[in-house]
């Protein structure tokens, strides 16, 4: 009896250890094997479900390329990149995060590979870097999220000033710009704009605006009644609605933050061909269709997303953001933001 028990224990331990080892060897095969089998790694701030859907589609089209992804908030992806750079090598082949200003930095540091993708022929030049170091691969817009069980569309905020409505006092949230690239972009646009400025943010703080650490949290916590309204990302709200959350989403009447989330290839990529293939796939109608099904606004002007604003219409109401100023002022901006909110 004791013997059997001991054997069972050893067997269990062996299985566990093998499970661990197995996963590792399988992985190293994926990256080490040359010739027929290729691999590509993308670091991104997209939701995991979006990347998983892209991976499925991409690997169907390119069965010989193993696609891997690492997903985290823009802030975390940047942390990872900086550490890897210091440690002497970026493990990613492509970067796709929310905040376009990061790419200006990357370009300056000579991190990017210039690639004029043939798949991007249809896409207007304004979405592309003049040197073709990066290009937008999806559009993210921010707006106001509200809970349809609590508020009617008429009661929901329509403008940024509406957020200061006493009804929403102490019942409102946004994402921490330290971790979220899209919110950083929005905050920069607001403080650069004389209509709002830092004064507006101070008013928001006085109004009881709270910070959440994730872009999904601000949306889902409106669904759970924790907040009455929040400043949220459109595709996250749409996918929560599709799952059954009782949410509504309003694009601001004026000054819509539009983030052209760019994609780029890392210059020292060891899998350049595979990286180009993935780049092309993401820009292609097929890849954009995958994104569309994950409720993300495609960059291709021919494609349309239900219940979303027309891109041309949104651009007329766009919140202008000075990218160059954002790049230079980023740290002081975050510090000033923290001094008000934290």
């Amino acid at each position, binding site marked *: 009896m004791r013997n059997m028990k001991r054997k069972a224990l050893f067997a269990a331990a062996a299985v566990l250890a093998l499970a*661990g080892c197995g996963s590792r060897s399988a*992985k190293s095969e994926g990256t080490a094997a040359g010739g027929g089998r290729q691999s590509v790694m993308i670091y991104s701030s997209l939701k995991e479900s979006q990347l998983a859907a892209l991976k499925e589609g991409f690997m169907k089209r390119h069965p010989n390329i193993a696609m891997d992804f690492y997903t*985290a908030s823009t802030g975390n992806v940047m942390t*990872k990149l900086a550490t890897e750079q210091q440690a002497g090598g970026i493990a990613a082949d492509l970067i796709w995060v929310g905040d376009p200003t990061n790419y200006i930095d990357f370009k300056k540091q000579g991190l990017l590979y210039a690639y004029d993708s043939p798949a991007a022929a249809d896409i207007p030049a304004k979405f592309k870097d003049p040197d073709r170091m990066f290009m937008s691969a999806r559009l993210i817009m921010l707006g106001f999220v509200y809970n349809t069980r609590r508020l009617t569309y008429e009661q929901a905020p329509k403008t940024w000033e509406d957020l200061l409505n006493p009804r929403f006092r102490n019942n409102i949230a946004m994402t921490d710009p330290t971790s979220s690239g899209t919110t950083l972009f929005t905050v920069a646009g607001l403080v650069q704009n004389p209509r709002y400025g830092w004064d507006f943010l101070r008013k928001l703080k006085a109004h009881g605006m709270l910070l*959440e650490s994730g872009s999904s949290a601000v*949306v889902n916590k409106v669904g*759970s009644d924790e907040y009455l309204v929040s400043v949220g990302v459109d595709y996250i709200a749409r996918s*929560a609605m599709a799952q*059954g959350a009782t949410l509504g989403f309003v694009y601001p009447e004026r000054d819509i933050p539009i983030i052209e989330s760019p994609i780029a290839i890392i210059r020292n990529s060891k899998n350049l061909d595979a990286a180009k293939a993935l780049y092309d796939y993401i820009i292609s109608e097929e890849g954009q269709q995958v994104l569309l099904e994950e409720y993300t606004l495609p960059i291709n002007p021919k494609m349309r997303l239900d219940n979303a604003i027309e891109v041309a219409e949104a651009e007329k109401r766009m919140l202008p953001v000075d990218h160059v100023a954002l790049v230079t002022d980023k740290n002081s901006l975050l510090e000033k933001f923290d001094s008000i909110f934290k």
Partner: protein
Amino acid sequence: MNAFGTKPGALPGTAGRRGLGLDFGLYILSTAILVITVLLPVLMIAYNTFIDGGRLDWRMFVRVVGDPGNLKSVWNTVVIALWVTVLGTVLGIFYAWLIGRSDIPLKGLMKSLFTIPYMFPPFFGAMAWSLLLAPRSGYINRLFMDLTGGTTPLFNMHSIAGIVFVETCYYFPFVFLQVVSALERMDPTLEESARIAGAGQWYVIRRITLPLVLPAIAAGAMLILISSLSHFGVPAILGFSQNIFTLPTKIYQLIRRSAGSFQGIREAAALSILLIVVVVAALYVQKRVLKTGRYDIIKGKSMRPMLIKLRGARLPILAVCLASLGVIVVLPLAVVILVGFLKAYGLPFRFENFTIRNYQYVLFRSRMVIDSIRNSLFLSVASGVITMFLGVMVAYVVVKVKPRGKGLLEILSLLPYSMPGIVLAIGVILVWSGAFYLNLYNTIWIILIAYIARYVSFAMKSASASLEQVHYSLEEAARSCGATHLESLRDVTLPLIRPGMVAGFFLIFLPGMRELTTSVLLYGPFTRTLGVAIYSMNAEGNTVQSSALATIAIGIILAGNLALRWVTKDRKGA
């Protein structure tokens, strides 16, 4: 006792020379491993805090320590830890006394239920209580506001008080378990003689029982204090949106905010030193307190103590116990499991809102989750096996070989016990990301090294307890029959302590499966652990998915605990 007239443990005769070589080798090897895994990280933290580019630099440390935000987080850390310690100790003593000394029914059931919080990571509790008592969305608060028609919540879990509450729920078993076992070992005749001499119930408790179990209480309280001071998960989950930071969460913030820049890591190292200072101060206070009350009247043999009759209070007290167990244990687990089945966070618990989609997603579609389960299994098994053998080796050297430098070895192996996990992580980053020609950052190996350093104290304690029970004469008998030193170790000592080693393995495997504090700073693209996966899904707001994954983790942890019980029961039976 000893045929050769040497002191016990010294090796007799000529066979000793080879044996001495082996012992010496083991001594050098264990010292080397401990210096690299435990001491080096601490030294690197000190070095990087005070030396910048080869020059002494005090200014950064002074600036970081003087920063009002950081001071505020020191204050929060201390306030939370003191409250948790006081409340947890009171709660632990109360329940321990009820189970050890009163005639309350269902003792066995309650005793095993009380150890449940011990099994789960406190941040599960934080997630659960946030679901229940977040100011507006918490299910209890919503119910309360619906009933009263008002907009004031019953209780805001996202507060210092909330953090104290959750940590207390998870840490009071430290005192409870210590005191229950002290009560069981205590000589009950002392209480009886007081009673015979005419002392009343309260007098006996106050003047006899309490002083006698004081060392056990102090040891348990110390564990709570240290654990709470270095705790990351609960304040990270409950404090963030309210800007409540403690030292560990502040260190985490700094590292994240710095985007990997060296300056950020240096500032985090400076804060780590502050945290170490706070912990050492707490240890010092405990030493002073313990000195005032040392009683050696606890007997080894167990005697049946006289049980105090609760009489009319018996059922009400039982009801209070069961209710508090329900609140501490059942309610949080139930809400996490239920939310894991919801279609979207915030929907009411109604049949049409339930789905198994979240489980399908985390188990089959999410690459990150599958990776994290595999990583945690690999890390817990590997660190369990390696650390257990390391612990046996160190314990053998300390207990049996007793070389001149054993004090250093003992201190090194017990140091991680009081070293906060987040500090260890910073040290490990500083050592293993290229400072010594080896860069393991972003790989699973850096986490493995951190786990080994973190758990070596557990292994060492459990192994030395088993080794102390193996008398010298057994090994000596083997040696005098002609066995070599190696053979006597392999055929006599190791088989005798094997059950202890298996139990020691589980003592590392189980906390390894739920580890968060250290891995949250060390994980890379493919090396998220189970704890990190649950924590980051929850932090990013994917509440239903993280609850589903937490439910799966609860299942794994329960299975592990059942396995542990099965193993240790076998040992007792044999």
